[in-house]
């Protein structure tokens, strides 16, 4: 056994404090013992878990964002007009938010949409989609005359919330058209 065990016959009270300490040191650094340096990692793991939980809580797990294509027609450059092209009169759809200037802090409750021209005026976004889809070539009903790229201009009035513009845009795009632009000065 170890060197300390050979001194076991010495009575306990005869050992001075210094000799006991020496014996403890001897036992510690004895090559044959299994003593290994160990690090207590408990507090570090506590702190790290705390950080992990903090960052998980502080991170905003957002709802995913989706996109709608709005390909702005590039009309600033000097384009050459095709003389044989029949001029397409764009369909102008007006959007107008109700009670916009009442000091609210959120989006207005409702909005009004309309089509300029001899069309039945839509009251809801669904009726706007239906109306436009019936007039599209290959749309519902099969009697429409407008091609897919028939120009459609959304004309939001001043003070229209962006959400209402996007909703009207979405209703128009769902009818199957792909040439929709936003212009407050159209018509």
């Amino acid at each position: 056994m170890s060197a300390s065990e050979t001194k076991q016959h010495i009575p306990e009270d005869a050992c001075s404090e210094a000799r006991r300490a020496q014996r403890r040191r001897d036992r510690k650094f004895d090559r044959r013992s299994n003593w290994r340096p160990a690090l207590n990692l408990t507090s570090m793991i506590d702190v790290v878990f705390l950080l992990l939980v903090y960052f998980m809580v502080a991170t905003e797990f957002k709802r995913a964002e989706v996109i709608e294509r709005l390909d702005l027609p590039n009309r600033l450059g000097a384009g050459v007009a095709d003389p044989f092209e029949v001029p397409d009169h764009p369909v102008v759809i007006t959007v107008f938010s109700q009670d916009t200037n009442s000091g609210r802090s959120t989006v207005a409750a409702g909005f009004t949409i309309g089509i300029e021209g001899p069309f039945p005026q839509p009251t809801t976004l669904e009726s706007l989609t239906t109306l436009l889809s019936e007039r599209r070539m290959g749309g519902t009903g099969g009697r429409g005359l407008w091609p897919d790229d028939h120009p459609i201009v959304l004309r939001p009035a001043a003070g229209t919330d962006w959400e209402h513009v996007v909703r009207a845009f979405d209703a128009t795009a769902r009818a199957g058209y792909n040439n929709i632009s936003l212009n407050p000065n159209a018509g």
Partner: protein
Amino acid sequence: MSTLLHTRRRHAPTEVESNLTSMIDVVFLLVVFFILVSQVVSREAEPLDLPKVPDAAAAVAGEDPRLVVNVLSDTSQPGVGLRAMVLGQPFSLDSDGCQALSNRVAVDLEQRPDLAIHLRADREVHFEWIHPVLEALRAASARVDGAEAKVHLVLLEPAS
């Protein structure tokens, strides 16, 4: 064996230890991940209320190269656009700011003509503040040869 040693052995507590090294590795990896992700998100996309459109005919944005233009709302004046933000750089919404925004977008379009521009605007900003931004994007696209303005409107994913 003496009684002294015998009793000491019997009272020695048994220590059960597990090797925690791999767990600490994984946990540190998670911490670093969350730190980096939170920084990336806040740099490109400003926190704002996106428009909510029920059952929108929209698509999830892919991994194609994009430039995000944020239009923030003024919190003290509802409906008023405060500024546009591109990668943390603010632009005012007057004519000077829109000119600067157009230049900024044109620089990126020069490098990548197929760049998609994502327009993230607050849902309560009025359209008269969005329109100059759209005009600036269109001007930037017209200035760069071979670029076409692929502008996408960003809205919140509809709740299913």
